[in-house]
């Protein structure tokens, strides 16, 4: 009988499995679990190697044809985001003007249904990419940035805007932080979410300015003042969203300063042209150039490097980095002009990274995605609705966080008794059968037969060696194959990353 307490340490876990081949299997499995959304069930555990190689896979590497085809068929892939949003806004205007109550209610219902569909589409696309993209680490970092720059889908027209938002984050996920930050400042989803489209000279709304400093760049308590927040809010006046194709009427002196790109606009008529002082630096009132200047100042602050580096490490290690590792990351940040891939590489090469493997706890997203990758490997799901529903139940729905701080990255947020109980119910849903993952979404669509065969290539390729004796004894008592599946997916070993 294995001592259960000894099993918690990764080293002890290896020692208890006995077989000499098991040691590398456990270590390689843990590495694969960390660098991807979970090892695939149709492949033996990947060969061990330099973890930094995971960063070299292009973020837009092609998906398997079935996944690419599903994505290509989505409305968000076929129509530009700005058109989708303006169409929904125009329809809303027409519905509001309708006088017949029954017709109005029916039109409203259809509109709500279309908004829900657009939201579901973007979640589906994200899930398909996470499950099947060869750029697994890049996909994890895309999730990280969507969480760092968290937006809440149900607010205003954001559900229709997410199709552009996730593409923007993915494109910059491994690039320069300054460019990523700058890209978020012109995204309508962010500007609506944090109310900056309402921020104008004489009608200051400081919500976005505060969260940029507190959450997106410097971090709370890093020394900026309420006055800095107010100054940044003034700089951001006129940065907004235009939901119609026409341009505003501007006086001749302001017209040349107007900027429009899709739904994004910088409206000089709404901008406060006074001079500002941000973090001790003078910014001359000039329009959009002030925003670019402010982004440069914020992205180059030592507090920003420290804050973002620490958070990246927390995500990739599962715990706070040591001062030495943090120092190495911020040094690399400076040397690489804030190149995210280079800063991440410092983590991946560290001893702390090696030591952390297998010691982390999967958050709900990692848990569900790893279970589906394990159960079905490269067989592409036809319907992501069950996954969306599971994530919602575990309180980590994509773009479902109400507050701009994003979902917590520390394990303690996900190990509570209620979380564990819900997770077991989802283990049962996944283990029991296809759970609707292969049922076409169109009415009357067929449900392809599918069953989660967990004793697969990954299991026999080494996963079985990582299961402790206590869990094995319970698995041996399973009354059926679905129950065996449920138990394995509910086991403490499967929660680790």
């Amino acid at each position, binding site marked *: 009988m294995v*001592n*259960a*307490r000894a*099993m*918690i340490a990764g080293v002890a876990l290896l020692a208890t499995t006995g077989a000499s081949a098991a040691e590398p299997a456990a270590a390689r499995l843990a590495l694969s679990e960390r660098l991807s959304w979970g090892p695939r069930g149709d492949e033996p555990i990947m060969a061990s190697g330099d973890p930094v190689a995971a960063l070299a896979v292009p973020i837009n590497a092609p998906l398997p044809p079935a996944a690419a085809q599903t994505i290509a068929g989505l409305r968000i892939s076929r129509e530009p985001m700005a058109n989708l949003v303006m169409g929904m806004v125009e329809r809303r205007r027409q519905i509001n003007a309708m006088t017949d109550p029954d017709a109005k209610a029916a039109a409203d219902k259809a509109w709500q249904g279309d908004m829900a569909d657009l939201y579901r589409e973007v979640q589906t696309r994200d899930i398909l990419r996470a499950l099947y993209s060869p750029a697994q680490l890049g996909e994890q970092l895309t999730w990280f940035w969507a969480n760092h720059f968290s937006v809440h889908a149900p607010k205003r027209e954001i559900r229709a805007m997410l199709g552009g938002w996730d593409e923007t984050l993915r494109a910059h996920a491994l690039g320069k932080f300054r460019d990523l930050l700058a890209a978020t400042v012109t995204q309508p989803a962010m500007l609506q979410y944090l*109310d900056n489209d*309402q921020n*104008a000279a*004489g*009608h*200051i*709304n*400081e*919500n976005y300015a*505060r969260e940029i400093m*507190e*959450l997106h760049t410097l971090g*709370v*308590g890093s020394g900026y003042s*309420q006055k800095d927040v107010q100054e940044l809010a003034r700089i951001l006046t006129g940065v907004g969203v235009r939901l119609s194709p026409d341009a505003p009427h501007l006086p001749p002196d302001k017209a040349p300063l107007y900027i429009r790109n899709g739904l994004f606009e910088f409206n000089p008529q709404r901008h406060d042209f006074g001079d500002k002082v941000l973090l001790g630096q003078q910014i001359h009132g000039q329009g959009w150039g002030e925003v670019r200047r402010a982004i440069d100042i914020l992205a180059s602050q030592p507090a920003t490097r420290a804050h973002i580096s620490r958070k990246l490490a927390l995500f990739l290690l599962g715990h706070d980095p040591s001062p030495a590792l943090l120092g190495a990351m911020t040094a690399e940040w400076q040397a690489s002009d804030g190149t995210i891939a280079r800063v991440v590489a410092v983590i991946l090469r560290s001893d702390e990274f090696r030591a952390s493997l297998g*010691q982390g*706890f999967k958050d709900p997203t990692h848990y569900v995605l790893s279970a589906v990758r394990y159960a079905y490997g490269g067989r592409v799901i036809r319907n992501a609705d069950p996954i969306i529903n599971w994530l919602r*139940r*575990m*309180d980590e729905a994509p773009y479902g966080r*109400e*507050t701009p*701080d994003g979902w*917590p990255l520390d*394990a*303690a*947020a*996900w*190990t*509570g*008794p*209620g*979380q*564990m*109980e819900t997770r*077991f*119910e989802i283990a*049962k*849903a996944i283990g029991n059968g296809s759970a609707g993952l292969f049922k076409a979404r169109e009415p009357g669509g067929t449900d392809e037969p599918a069953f989660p065969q967990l004793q697969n290539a990954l299991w026999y390729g080494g996963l079985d060696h990582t299961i402790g004796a*206590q*869990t094995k*004894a*319970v698995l041996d*008592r*399973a009354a059926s194959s679905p*129950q065996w599946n*449920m*138990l394995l997916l*509910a*086991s*403490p070993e499967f*929660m680790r990353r």
Partner: protein
Amino acid sequence: MLDRRTVLNGAGMAGLSLLGGRVMAAPAASGTRFLLVFLRGAYDAANVVAPAGNTFYHEARPTIALAAPDPVNPQAALPLDADWSLHPALRDSIAPLWQARQIAFVPFAGTDDMSRSHFETQDTIEMGQPIQGQRQYGSGFVGRLAGVLNAGGKGGGNGTIAFSDTLPLVMRGGPMIPNLALGGNGKPPIDDSETAMIATMYRGQRLGTVDLDAAVHTGFAARDTVWHTIDDEMKAAGRGAIAARGFEAAAQRIGLVMRDRYNLAFVDVGGWDTHVNQGGATGQLAGRIGELGRGLAAYAAALGPDAWRQTVVVVVSEFGRTFRENGNRGTDHGHGSIYWVMGGAVAGGRMVGPQSRIAPETLNQNRDLPVLTDYRALIGGLWQRQYGLNQAQLAKIFPQVSPARLNLI
């Protein structure tokens, strides 16, 4: 009461259900009960308990202020005392409790955290530790109360629960406390034998400092307890007795399980960050506060008169909002808030704690309400009387706090 592990091993060997039935249920609730309600997002206190007779209030809020009390205007605020009035959306839920002297409001309440950050200040409140000096992250004040009550043999800690999707910071750092979102009505899908098998896999399992074994047991026990309580109630009263949805439904269930099973609980309610178009007598905030009021009234009704007399509910929020409305008919992050204290035995029907005249020159930083009653002193003073805590016990829960003597109970 049997030791948890004894129950587990004994039942396991006998081949019985380990956690099915009520073996693992928390002890029946009795005696004093406490519910903390956290309005996350900073509710605009000054438009819910409003100084509606104050001229400056109307100047500061030209589009969103509530009309001063007026018996013939159903949109007008409802009079509380000479200075304060209640939002009309609370007419049928909270106003009757005020008449019955079962709710008190504590204006100018909050923290000394001036960050005006939702997250920073929520964390500050939940930790309940002095913000100067070294703080113990991961330790919340309700968690510490549960620890003190357990250690003192007063019970309570075992009957503690968070009604939320994840375990909030305020409940951490003490004994293992379950969390449960009160969503569906369905029977739990994991049956008794599967529950036992899962529990066996987690025997002795830890993740760093987290005791996964205890978490799994506590989670199953809470699930069974809540499921049986609600199921019994539904069988007894018919489905119509359970409100359909939203906070009202959740609050009613919390009342049921706190009547029978749990005596120290937490629930949070979001959606208060009204920067834009917050509305006045009707609109965004009115809808939200109306639902909160109906929920708290349903909670009191579900407890029943006996348990309600032994219950104290405190409603807090991280900070108040700017006293002046912003350019978007909303309000921005401010400072002082107004907290609620309610219960069958609360000395209510009054505004409690020190007050300041509200005028441009008395605003904090010319922006928002000052804080004159610290939330730690408020809740510390309340708990000292409610639970009969001594100084050392109180100091464990709220270090370096002098409890406020507000005679709320």
